[in-house]
């Protein structure tokens, strides 16, 4: 039996996205391959979220092409996303994961050992029966991670997963992300937190005004930024 085609590499070739005459992304060319986490950084409105949604297949390019390994935009089943403000379904913590495992179908029931393993992975094993909407912000983010991982993704997009979380909750989320990355899942994470980028990134994509200004290994980017915008951003200056 042949193995199913891979979602990777994701090849974005000269893609621009416009909405109502406004340029959201401009001439983006990028190849996302398996390996260490790719972190998107840049000021607010730089296009990080839009690039993640584009790569996830949630928004179409206005011009240019995008390919997901052997799949089309709506075909792949092994890419997943955690939104900045994930919506908790109105069911229990375990019920949220079971829903994702079943792909929304009512039957057959989700395998309980898989639900338990995912709860354990994100540190929510003790909260399986709690209503998901009653979790704290950090716990909801970890549940969203578990729900995304239920799809057994090859690539996981994370849009500002620790925005508005306190340091303890941030660490809990980052620990899960690091574990998942170590298990071989490609992580693409958007953040405006430079500390988080330093802790997690294998390579960095620096964006301003819908364009990629730099895409380099994290160590090089943080020690020797090339563009003046990146230098100013790393110095903590305002980049508009």
């Amino acid at each position, binding site marked *: 039996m042949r193995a199913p085609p891979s979602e990777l590499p994701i090849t974005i070739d000269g893609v621009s996205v416009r909405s109502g005459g406004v340029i959201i992304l401009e001439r983006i060319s990028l190849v996302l391959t398996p390996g260490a986490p790719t972190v998107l950084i840049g000021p607010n409105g730089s296009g990080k979220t839009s690039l993640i949604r584009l790569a996830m297949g949630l928004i179409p390019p206005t011009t240019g092409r995008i390919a997901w390994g052997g799949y089309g935009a709506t075909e792949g089943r092994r890419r997943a996303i955690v*939104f900045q403000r994930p919506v908790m379904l109105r069911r229990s913590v375990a019920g949220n994961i079971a829903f994702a495992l079943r792909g929304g179908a009512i039957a057959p029931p989700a395998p309980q050992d898989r639900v338990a393993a995912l709860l354990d992975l994100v540190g929510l094993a003790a909260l399986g029966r709690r209503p998901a909407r009653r979790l704290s912000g950090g716990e909801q983010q970890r549940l969203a991670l578990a729900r995304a991982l239920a799809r057994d993704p090859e690539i996981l997009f994370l849009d500002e997963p620790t925005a508005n979380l306190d340091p303890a909750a941030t660490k809990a989320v980052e620990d899960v992300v690091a574990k998942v990355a170590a298990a071989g899942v490609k992580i693409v994470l958007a953040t405006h937190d430079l500390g988080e980028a330093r802790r997690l990134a294998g390579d960095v994509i620096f964006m301003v005004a819908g364009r990629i200004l730099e895409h380099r290994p994290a160590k090089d980017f943080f020690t020797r930024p090339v563009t003046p915008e990146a230098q100013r951003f790393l110095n903590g200056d305002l980049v508009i």
Partner: protein
Amino acid sequence: MVNGMQDGVSAFDLILGGDPALYAIIKLSLTVSVSATLLASAVGLPLGALLALVRFPGRAVMVVVLNAFMGLPPVVVGLGMYLLLSRSGPLGFLGLLFTPQAMIFAQAVLVMPIVAALTRQTVEDLWVEYRDELTAMRIGPTARVAALLWDARFSLVTTLLAGFGRAAAEVGTVMIVGGNIDGFTRTMTTAIALETSKGDLPLAVGLGIVLIALIIVVNAAAALARRIGELHAG
């Protein structure tokens, strides 16, 4: 004033004394209204959800019509059902006119637009919230409908109560298609109308008290169920 008080006392005597005629009417009324609400929900819930999720030519007109039909005049529905079910009508061969089944179908026609229109609004609001997550999870159309209906279940209880309230309080439709036949198709509302016109106020008042009490009990039970459900499911 004195007569009114006497009627009230007699009404309570009928209720507490377990008057068989009174309880037969109550039983039939509940059977008809609950069955009609269930039947209307079986059509109205999925129809409302589909209208919320699917875009097609004429959808806006359909939504307007559905909303307008929430205010369908019961006597007009009764007349329409009468024409359908009468011996010379297209469904006359079923022999349903002046039966409880006809009353159930007629009330279901009355209630269905309420259930469908309120469901559409509820599900559409929830879809705005869930769209990104369900799309990203690649949840198919049928599973989306099921998920949205399930997750909106506590709001939809109110929708079903609105439908049940409409059915339970309705008199014109069941009077026309049921015929208000004693011991067979006489419901609380038709009996109240009849007994009032005959001047038998104790029975009319007793039925009125029971009708209002039932509606309060059903709503209280639903509110309690909703509260407990929200506590456990969020």
